[in-house]
């Protein structure tokens, strides 16, 4: 859905929150799965595997930053901030990779606006779904991962 000044991507947010609660290996696998789903979308302008590559790295890094550090994983605010930064970084890398692959990316200002808008909406949406993601994560991996 298109919203004022950008939009949000539920798969992207879900995958990053899930990764923030997981080990780096699970994070990379989550990124792979989420990336494949985003690549299968017809609105994805890049070749198949474009989002997958970006998401593997984004989810791995987010999981790596959160793993073993209770200051990050135990605090919902840190997870939300990590997700917002992860979304903005993933989009920036996606844009850069697209540029290297020869895709048209439009004006720089518009790209910045979309990234900022998506980060804003991610900041709004993440707290709303964090509890649900945490609940599912703990159901799958055990109670120790519950926030």
């Amino acid at each position, binding site marked *: 859905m298109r919203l004022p000044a950008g939009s949000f991507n539920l798969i992207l947010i879900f995958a990053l929150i899930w990764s923030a609660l997981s080990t780096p290996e699970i994070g990379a696998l989550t990124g792979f799965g989420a990336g494949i789903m985003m690549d299968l979308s017809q609105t994805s302008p890049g070749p198949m*595997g474009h989002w997958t590559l970006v998401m593997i790295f984004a989810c791995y890094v987010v999981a790596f930053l959160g793993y073993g550090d209770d200051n990050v994983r135990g605090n919902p605010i840190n997870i939300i901030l990590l997700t917002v930064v992860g979304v903005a970084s993933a989009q920036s890398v996606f844009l850069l990779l697209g540029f290297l692959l020869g895709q048209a990316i*439009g004006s720089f200002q518009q790209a910045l606006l979309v990234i900022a808008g998506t980060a804003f909406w991610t900041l709004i949406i993440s707290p709303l779904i964090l509890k649900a993601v945490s609940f599912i994560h703990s159901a799958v991996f055990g109670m120790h991962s519950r926030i």
Partner: protein
Amino acid sequence: MRYGGDNRGRLLIIILVVTSLLLITLDLRGVRVIDGLRTGTQTALTPVQRLGSWAVSPFRNFLSDVTHLGRTRNEIEKLKDDNDQLRLALQNREVADIQLKQLKKVLDLAGNGGYKVVAAKVISQGSSTSFTQTITIDAGTTSGVFTNMTVLSGYGLVGVVKYAYANSALVQLASDPAFKIGARIARSEQIAILSGQGTRKGLLQLLDNSSEIKKGDVLLARGSQKGRPFVPGVPIGEVISVSNSPGALTETAEVKFYTNFSTLGVVAVVVSEPRSDPRDALVPSKPQPTPIPTVTIYATPGADTPSPAATN
């Protein structure tokens, strides 16, 4: 950040990265399986997309009302005088009325241009997360809609069909950064290339350095062979500013598209080219100023009553 990783973890990440690189390579080399996967997914997800569009429509309408608060204020004040039942009925009919109006306008445009069209409803707008501008419409190959067909609104060009499925199609909007169209300036033979910029404004580049453009010039589609991807004569937009860089080989200009891409409800897909090029027949007419009557009163000294004379 106490994670050190192990060999299995590293191996897993290497396998995943290599897989994604392999997918990129296969897709860039045009392996058909990848296209088939995307097409299959879209076909399977079309009913879900329709359901999602229906489910989020109250939220979308609310946001639309908030962003167009100034424009709807007068309408809301007028509705306050009506009773609750009538107000409810009006709200329910509002969406249908807008779509009907859009349909009438787009059919008028298509009729004037001699285009054979298939009308379609917009069922979803593509996310801008991937820096693309797309919409999905509810007409597909079963309705005669195929790839590389021109899509119109009542105001002019909307975009081009990028992918067509059985019951839906993905339309690349003219505002998409990857969109390019050959354009002609109305009432002249000057040609140019118009590119989308991600907003309602596009960038026009003239091909001939001796040509000149000025603010207010109307752009029409030049048309392609056999009318695909573009049929000729479709109004695109109007030049709003011209940039004359001393070092530039040709002039460039900023163009505002006639179509407002964020309010699209009903569109039409041109399924066959017109028998003849409509040339400038579809250039939108400029709004005419409404004449204001002026009353002049001549007062003659000594006369009983002044004599009024009305002029326009």
